[in-house]
């Protein structure tokens, strides 16, 4: 078969989910001729679980993706029907946005965004094989026999690798409800690419018909006003349909729900041993919740609208793989859902994933030098985690294709860095989800300062289009002017900047009293981010100092040849093999405990001392 320009690309992205979108979009923004191959073009950007984006930790990721010029924040803003800022009473460092989205609108917006990129192309087809030449992927092979060449490849196959759907004791092959799985690619990854694979599972609840739900029997959960959009650059002024936000509704399980589940546990694929994959503990099925927390009388259910054009609802909290007749009984045992009609049954899906410690910090596999993996294939769960990885993999696929040095997000300054570092350093033993508790430097990597942390890097990488770059620099210079004004203006013998550090003062108050009016005529997010920056400054410094003091020691290569008191043979062996040049690097090695880092630090200090005297 001849190689035409239609079959030669810089970057190939396999998969059109949230990871695939970010990977392809990033590579295209960086000027690479990019092809996104997916099994169904109409399902690009499908939200296969609940119709919601963000949350604690996850919302932080969305903000960071947005600061890097990525898609997810904008797509959620353009398809959102309800927005909320979470944790408002717990400190700015742990606040994050969550949005309910219109499921079909999200897909439309994703497609529009990808179509608008001049160097990005789409192709429908199932990838069945990878052609390997000289330790690199040369091309991918589609089911119709076409070969497509790329300099670098990003695989984002989600739950489709050997996907198996379970409803009751019936199991069928499939990647998502109503969609078929990819069956051949798993063995290509293990046999041809030398990667080791594991198996995970996740699940969804049945979807319900709106007009059969008694909403008046449930508690409405409204969104916030003003609407907290994700986008840092030019957020929309209104929701896409111009109307008010849609509420969610709160209800809960009953004693009857428990009885139904207990009576039918033998028909659950989870409890009859048919499902072997590891499920996420933070997304348990309703049967798990009943079995593991028998003392708990009720479990809450959030009934979420699927969109404005469809009368379909997602009862978040009763994910289940019990048979359909049991699902019907569960639903009818819940206040407000007594008469509810099931539109689509809930199911559990089992799928293959690749243990992510076989990747480096750019999400490139250690076995094939131009293969990148992102999303659920790496053992994570969630749209946001997938998108974040897609961004990192897409950037590095583009850098590799254009012969530029790679880029890895830093653990100390982003959730993206925390996630990638956790994955490739510690691998996973259950589906990985982002939490703020995973980030040591939580006080610095906040929702409000994502642009300050990441946009400068995005500019260097060429990820921000001119209009966003321009907006970032306006925001940045505004911050500098305001900061200068705050530190040069005095009140009660102190500078306004010092006053602002105290919890008793707010920026709005200080501007209103002591600064020219023009400072208040900017997007509110510009003001709040500076305000938090000042308030957290001192604490961030303390925590940074500690890290620097702890981390920034070079490891003299000679020292690894000496006896290192307290360091076990295994650790010593690993250090000798990997030869890290700094403590921070040693820390990221697999199997190196914090205790051995401390011992190594002591040995280095002693060594330096001895050499000096």
């Amino acid at each position, binding site marked *: 078969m001849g190689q035409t320009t239609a079959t030669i690309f810089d970057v190939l992205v396999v998969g059109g989910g949230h990871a695939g979108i970010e990977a392809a979009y990033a590579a295209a923004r960086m000027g690479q001729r990019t092809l996104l191959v997916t099994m169904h073009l109409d399902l690009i950007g499908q939200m296969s679980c609940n119709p919601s984006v963000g949350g604690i930790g996850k919302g932080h990721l969305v903000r960071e993706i947005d600061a890097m010029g990525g898609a997810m924040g904008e797509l959620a803003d353009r398809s959102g029907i309800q927005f909320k800022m979470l944790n408002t009473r*717990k400190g700015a460092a742990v606040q994050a946005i969550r949005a309910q989205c219109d499921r079909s609108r999200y897909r439309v917006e994703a497609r529009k965004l990808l179509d608008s990129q001049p160097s990005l192309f789409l192709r429908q087809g199932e990838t069945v094989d990878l052609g390997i030449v000289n330790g690199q992927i040369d091309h991918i092979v589609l089911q119709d026999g076409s070969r497509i060449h790329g300099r670098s490849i990003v695989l984002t196959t989600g739950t489709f690798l050997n996907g198996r759907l379970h409803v009751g004791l019936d199991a069928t092959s499939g990647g998502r409800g109503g969609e078929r799985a990819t069956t051949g690619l798993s063995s290509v990854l293990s046999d041809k690419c030398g990667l080791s694979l594991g198996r995970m599972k996740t699940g969804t609840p049945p979807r319900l018909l709106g007009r059969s739900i008694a909403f008046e029997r449930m508690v409405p959960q409204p969104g916030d006003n003003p609407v907290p959009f994700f986008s840092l650059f030019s957020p929309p002024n209104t929701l896409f349909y111009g109307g008010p936000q849609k509420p969610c509704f709160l209800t809960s399980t009953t004693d009857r729900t428990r009885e139904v589940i207990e009576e039918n546990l033998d028909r659950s694929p989870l409890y009859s041993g048919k499902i072997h994959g590891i499920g996420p503990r933070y997304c348990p099925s309703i049967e798990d919740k009943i079995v593991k927390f028998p003392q708990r009388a009720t479990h809450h259910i959030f009934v979420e609208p699927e969109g404005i054009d469809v009368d379909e609802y997602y009862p978040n909290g009763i994910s289940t793989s019990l048979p359909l007749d049991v699902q019907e009984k569960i639903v009818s045992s819940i206040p407000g859902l007594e008469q509810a009609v099931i539109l689509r049954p809930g199911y559990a899906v089992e799928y293959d994933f690749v243990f992510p410690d076989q990747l480096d910090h750019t999400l490139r596999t250690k076995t094939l030098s131009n293969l990148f993996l992102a999303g659920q294939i790496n053992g994570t769960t969630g749209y946001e985690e997938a998108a974040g990885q897609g961004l990192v993999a897409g950037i590095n696929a583009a850098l590799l294709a254009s012969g530029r040095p790679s880029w890895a997000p830093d653990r100390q300054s982003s959730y993206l860095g925390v996630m990638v570092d956790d994955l490739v350093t510690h691998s996973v033993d259950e589906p990985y989800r982002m939490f703020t508790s995973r980030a040591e430097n939580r006080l610095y990597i906040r929702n409000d300062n994502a642009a300050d942390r990441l946009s400068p890097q995005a500019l260097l990488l060429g990820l921000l289009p001119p209009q966003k770059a321009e907006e970032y620099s306006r925001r940045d210079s505004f911050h500098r002017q305001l900061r200068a004004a705050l530190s040069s203006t005095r009140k009660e013998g102190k500078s306004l900047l010092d006053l602002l550090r105290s919890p008793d003062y707010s920026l709005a108050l200080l501007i209103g009293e002591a600064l020219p009016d023009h400072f208040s005529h900017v997007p509110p997010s510009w003001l709040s981010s500076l305000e938090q920056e000042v308030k957290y400054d001192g604490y961030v410094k303390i925590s940074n100092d500690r890290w620097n003091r702890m981390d920034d020691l070079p490891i003299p290569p000679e020292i690894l040849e000496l006896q290192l008191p307290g360091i076990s043979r295994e650790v010593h062996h690993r250090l000798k093999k990997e030869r890290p040049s700094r403590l921070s690097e040693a820390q990221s090695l697999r199997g190196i405990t914090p205790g051995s880092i401390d011992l190594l630090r002591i040995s280095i200090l002693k060594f330096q001392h001895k050499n000096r005297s």
Partner: protein
Amino acid sequence: MEPIVAPVTVLVSQPVGILRLSGDNLSDRIKPLFPSLPSTLEHRRIYRATAIERGSPVDDCLLLFFKAPQSFTGEDLVEIQAHGNPHNIRHLLALLHGLGIRLARPGEFSLRAYQNRKISLLKAESLHRMILAPSYAEFQVAHHHYTSSENHPLYGIRDDFLNLLALFFTLLDHPEEEEEALSNLSPHVLQDRIQTLERSISEVINRTAKAKKPFNGFTVLIAGHPNSGKSSLFNRILKDNRAIVSPLPGTTRDLLEGRLSFPFGDLVLLDSAGLRPSEDGIEQEGIRRARRSLSRVDCVLWIACPDFPAPPDFLPSQKGIPFFLLWNKVDLTTPSDPSRYDHLVSARTRRGLPSLCERLSRLAETYYSSSLPGSSSLDSDRQIKTLRRLRLSIRRSRSFLESGRIDLALSALEEGRRVLDDGVGAIPASDIYDRVFNLFCLGK
């Protein structure tokens, strides 16, 4: 690591003397001394072998072999049982030294066990406490800590601390849970939990501080001016009671230590060579040292003599510990006012000594029966320091929590986590997440 050796038994004449060796490839090392040993030794086997020096046999020995890493130190470990004549043992030590096996420093076997991750730092400290325990009751406490880490008070605190961290993680990462479980997860609940933890840390610290010197036992300080006869009294009491004067230096360089072992526990006698008066009475530094010694002992014997018949003003009734005024050398002179003195003694003639010793041993017995060592006291000063630092970060966390800044409160707690990492052993994140998901039914 380089091979080391230490005598396990004291160097006195006795039927058996034991040497213990640890290091890499020990069987190769000792082969020249015991040529009859097979070339590879089996784990946990006993070998009978003759030590040979330049072709001639020097002693018949039993050798116990433990193969790395299944030994106490994690290295090859050999115990040599030889005939317990001290000259023989010294000669064997010299022969081993010739094979490049040096004498171990104090505590080096435990240190290696710790370095090779055979025992934790806590365990090493419990072991140390076990060995030095001044009474059987103390020994039992230390052994209780040693056999199971759950028995250690630090572990209880660590456990409560991790549960607290799990609550914080849950509160911050699962806001939807807060709405559901308001009763058992709110800043208020956290406040209570933090206070409870802070209290139990303080209790452990106080209890340990009250036990003062956790494993030194009932301590008597002999003090007085030079030439008042302190040292002769010290030696006489020890000798009459057939005690072994401890070969270890005392707690400070200025003190000599001796131990009397009674069935109920040890009586530690300290000879303070350090209280040196200058021309104009006792100099400041001397007073400071004396005061410090006094604050650490359980009883003081002040020796008066004709030149200095009264104790200095700063001495009496320090913190209510028993204080006895002694008149020594009563065989030479008698005091003008005998009723001022608690005991009239003579170290030379032993006069008055039996009743003094009787009194001291009664005091020691009361001490051991009334201050039964609680299993909740700590093993070392290092552990006290760890808890103090932990308490500091918990207090900071509490004050942040009071002003509603939960994110800062968590960061303060995480500093505490590092303190525990250093002091007790690393806490993996998965440990905390396990607690999060076992405590709450999270997620939708």
